[in-house]
């Protein structure tokens, strides 16, 4: 097997009393689409941000390109970020700019290309996501799905080697979700970059994944191929995939001291 592109090694992170990562480890291999699943608030998005160097860790390290992200200098971190495309949950387009300017921004900032070349690239990438006719629109004029597609095109502009998707289909109708999933699969197939998709949408996860990981209580409780997940009898996986309200992933109701609390006897 190839060397991992990103190696997460025993990372720990707390927000106050809340444990987000508890000695979490995982290797991400080149050309692979890894889907990280987990309930709301389980730390999936925080993990993506930690891999971008936007969240400082309490312990452990994330190795990317042979270097620990936590010990990268500012220019090294910038170089790392330039090699990663990031699709945010909301699309995170700059509201004061047109769709075309949103896409052109990174090229204007990081390349010496002529403006006419940048404009051609903008049209090519917008065509790839089916938004070429909307290039002069403001983000406020786009639907949720279109914003995500524009965000995807923007992230592609720098021709990244690795792509992070943060809840790419959250809040979208089934058709738009399927379109985004198809887009992710097509791009992955055509451009062969390494992808990490964070989601809790099971249908989407199975559509795009080469490998899956389930994050729970700060740890990856299961890591495996989609077929392993589908056929698993593990009650934890079954509860997540089947969307059952009762099971090992459910929050404990905390019956202790309930009467005292209600009657204010404590």
């Amino acid at each position, binding site marked *: 097997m190839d060397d991992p592109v990103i190696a997460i090694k025993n990372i720990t992170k707390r927000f106050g009393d809340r444990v987000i990562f508890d000695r979490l480890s995982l290797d991400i291999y080149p050309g692979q689409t890894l889907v990280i699943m987990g309930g709301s608030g389980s730390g999936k998005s925080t993990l993506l941000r930690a891999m*971008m160097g*936007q969240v400082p860790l309490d312990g452990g390290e994330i190795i990317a390109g042979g270097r620990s992200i936590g010990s990268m200098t500012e220019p090294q971190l910038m170089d790392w*970020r*330039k090699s990663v495309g990031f699709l945010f949950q909301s699309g*995170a387009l*700059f*509201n004061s700019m047109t769709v075309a300017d949103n896409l052109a921004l990174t090229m204007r900032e990081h390349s010496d290309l002529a403006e006419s070349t940048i404009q051609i690239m903008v049209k090519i990438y917008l065509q790839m996501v089916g938004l070429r006719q909307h290039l002069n629109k403001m983000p406020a004029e786009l639907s949720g799905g279109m914003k995500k597609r524009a965000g995807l095109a*923007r992230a592609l502009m720098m021709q990244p080697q690795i792509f992070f998707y943060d809840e790419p289909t959250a809040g979208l109708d089934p058709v738009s979700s399927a379109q985004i999933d198809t887009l992710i699969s097509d791009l992955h197939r055509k451009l062969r970059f390494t992808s990490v998709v964070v989601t809790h949408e099971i249908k989407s996860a199975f559509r795009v994944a080469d490998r899956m990981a389930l994050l729970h209580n700060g740890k990856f409780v299961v890591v495996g191929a989609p077929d392993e997940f589908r056929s698993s009898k593990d009650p934890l996986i079954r509860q997540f995939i089947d969307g059952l309200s009762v099971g090992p992933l459910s929050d404990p109701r905390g019956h202790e001291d309930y009467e005292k609390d209600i009657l204010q006897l404590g």
Partner: protein
Amino acid sequence: MFRQAIEVLGDFGLMLYRALAAIHESLVGGRGSRIGRANLWWQMNRVGISSIPIVCLVLFCIGAILELQMAKPLANFGVVPLTADIVSLATFRELGPLVSAVVLTGFGGAAIAAELGTMVVGEEIEALEAQAIDPIRFLVVPRVLATIIMLVCLTVLGDLVAVFGGMTVGFFWLGIGVRQYLAHSREMLHVQDFVTGLIKAGVFGLLISSIACFMGLRVKGGAEGVGLATSRTVVYTIVALILVDLLFTSAFFYLGF
């Protein structure tokens, strides 16, 4: 509480240092470190141009009010034309930069805090970082430079309008001739009165924009957080302006300017 205040001040100092370093880098660095003339021009337009009518109106009124307030006590000594000296000196040294700064705090400072706060809530700041674009260079530096430049310009304009306001009242109500008024103003004012006012304006511009950017970038908790940051920006900036003004006035006083 004390520790938290020190931490906030430390963060503010760090942001200011990074902004100044980015300004330096933009002057000597290449692509990826530039501020962008178009961006700076747009910010100057947004922060300064929209404030011109209100700064002019307020300073015209202040000149007129000062003229009227000074007229009675000076009339007792038979030296009413000296109101021109007082209005000119007070405006150029103090009221021009301070009042322009307060108006710009309401206009530009609040707008900057709200804009950056909204960008934080909409993940736009994280998106900039993810694209290897430094938000301090890309967002803070143009706003800081634009506010400094525009406040200096507004102060020059405000000074002149305030003297014009005093002169208008002096001419129509107090019977002071225009030539006499201007002669008194010219006689009283020295270059250092003008320069100290402009130095204050520059520092006030830095203060307004840096506090606004700092508060905007620290927004937490959605729309409510944006509202809170905006109102706090106005309050903190006005308090800081008065304190820094006192500091500078004391320093100029002891240095003999």
